[in-house]
């Protein structure tokens, strides 16, 4: 290239400080953007690092999923049966959903479709504040308020049981479900409602026949995310469930949950011991189940989003 041509090409080269700054920022925000993937991968890697060592040595799937004998501290014959913990988590989450699904869907429909103006804004703020209450405060409420309430009302010896933890967890999961469900209702185009109203439908008919069917996927996703939330909650089940290894016969039995077991025992184990690694194995189980729930909710949600786009003119 002759010198003249070189000089000419430099004239057209606008790569000044601004260009390099722009490049640098592009790289920086890309790293920031992908950090979420890095972190979720890191979480799995670090839990697996401790937990898989156990899975491939001491782990016995039949015992883990079939036995209720969680005796990790026994010196002679330590057993790691997680069945009671799984059943405990499932029973608390199940009851929590029985409590919170009807109420949160009702609240979502009321706030999203019936309430107007100031009432609606107030309710939304209240629901948001509800969602902000820390789990340890809910646990405290279960431990000190619900406990004595249950003992008094049902005349049972212990108030720390499935019923207590389930109700508290239900109250706790409800605001999240309400918010997501309300978003799903809001995503239904107003044109649908107007069309139905033009045919003379009352507002309830519009909701029942048009809005809810159209928002069905979003509502299912809301319920799923609520389940995931309840399943992974730690402090409430630790404080309000009674924390005793037990296959419950009724809601008045104390149980113990997966999350609570980790929280209660991790501090007392030696790093790298079988017990320590067994707790990380419980962590792998929790991680995989919540991952599956979130993935399912996301797929269902994306389904509606895509349908919505297709429907748009």
């Amino acid at each position, binding site marked *: 290239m002759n010198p003249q041509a070189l000089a000419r090409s430099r004239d057209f080269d606008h790569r000044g400080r601004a260009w390099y700054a722009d490049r640098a920022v592009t790289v920086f925000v890309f790293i920031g953007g992908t950090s979420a993937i890095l972190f979720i991968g890191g979480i799995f890697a670090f839990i697996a690092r401790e937990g898989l060592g156990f899975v491939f040595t001491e782990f016995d799937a039949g015992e883990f999923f079939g036995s209720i004998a969680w005796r990790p501290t026994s010196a002679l014959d330590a057993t790691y049966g997680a069945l009671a913990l799984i059943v405990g988590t499932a029973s608390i989450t199940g009851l929590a959903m029985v409590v919170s699904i009807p109420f949160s869907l009702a609240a979502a429909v009321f706030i999203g479709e019936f309430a107007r103006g100031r009432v609606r804004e107030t309710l939304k703020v209240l629901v948001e504040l509800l969602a902000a209450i820390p789990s340890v405060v809910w646990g405290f409420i279960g431990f000190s308020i619900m406990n004595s309430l249950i003992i008094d009302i049902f005349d049972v010896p212990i108030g720390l049981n499935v019923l207590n933890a389930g109700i508290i967890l239900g109250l706790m999961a409800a605001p999240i479900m309400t918010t997501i469900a309300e978003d799903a209702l809001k995503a239904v185009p107003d044109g649908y409602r107007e069309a139905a109203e033009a045919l003379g439908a*009352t507002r309830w008919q519009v909701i029942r026949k048009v809005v809810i069917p159209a928002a069905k996927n979003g509502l299912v996703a809301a319920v799923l995310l609520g389940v995931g939330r309840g399943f992974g909650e730690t402090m409430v089940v630790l404080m309000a469930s009674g924390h005793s290894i037990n296959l419950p016969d009724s809601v008045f039995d104390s149980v113990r949950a997966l999350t609570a077991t980790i929280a209660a025992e*991790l501090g007392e184990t030696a790093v790298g011991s079988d017990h320590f690694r067994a707790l990380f194995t419980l962590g792998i189980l929790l991680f995989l189940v919540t991952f599956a729930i979130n993935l399912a909710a996301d797929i269902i949600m994306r389904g509606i989003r895509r349908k919505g786009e297709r429907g748009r003119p």
Partner: protein
Amino acid sequence: MTGTAAPLFAGTSLNARDRKIEWLVRALLGLMTALLILPVVIIMALLVVEGGPVISWEFLTTPPVDGMTAGGILPALVGTVWLVVVALIASVPVGVAAAVYLSEYAPDNWLTRAINLAIINLAGVPSIVHALFGVGAFVLFFRFGTSILAASLTLAVMTLPVVIVSTRESLQAVPRAFREACWNMGATRWQTIRRIVLPNALSGILTGIILEVSRTSGETAPIMFTGAAFFLPFLPQGVLDQTMAMSLHLFVITTQVPDAPEALPFGVALVLISMVLAMNALSIAFRVYVRGRKKW
């Protein structure tokens, strides 16, 4: 034209029945909404009634004494502030960068979908699993030990989605025309973001950060094994010290200190929840204020 013709839009008896059903449904749903909110209002009232008398200036400014059965909560309050501040320093730059990427740069491809899925999962993974991650990564692998640094980084990873989601929303609320006008003046992408997009989204970002403060200060499980101590009557001196924290302190005096006076945990719970709800209310008020004076 006599008055005998039925009015054109009068309801039939069938319409009247539909109206009645609608009224009933509305009342039922309203009642259920109230039932969802009412218990919490009652609980708050109870916390104030039971815990209110405990709270005094002395309670807030002295350390606990006599095996945590008396005294105040100063080290826990200060510790929570430490944890929150360090967590914010770690997560806000990363979170804002991620949001800028997702809102301003990311093409609609598999990577962006993977990032979004990762964000949803970061928010959805149980807090105790975050705790295990904190122990495995920060305490053991990076050898930070049980320290404010390890606990705050765990909290930062956990609350990252809060910053990302709220920042992304506020960035996307800035009209596209603003960006186009700036590009047409010859500005680079970054110049546009720095001079136009970020300033217009700043209040929304701040709202998200306040929300994160509220979330971070209430978390218990992630800090239990990574840096929060059951009882430590000193104030932390640096990020490698352990510390007490409000949330763990509430757990400890509720379940581990049986001879604590009954009102004491109510007092701690009241202070904790007031902190969290005050932050949340601030963020809501801020949002309403910003929405009110938006220029577009």
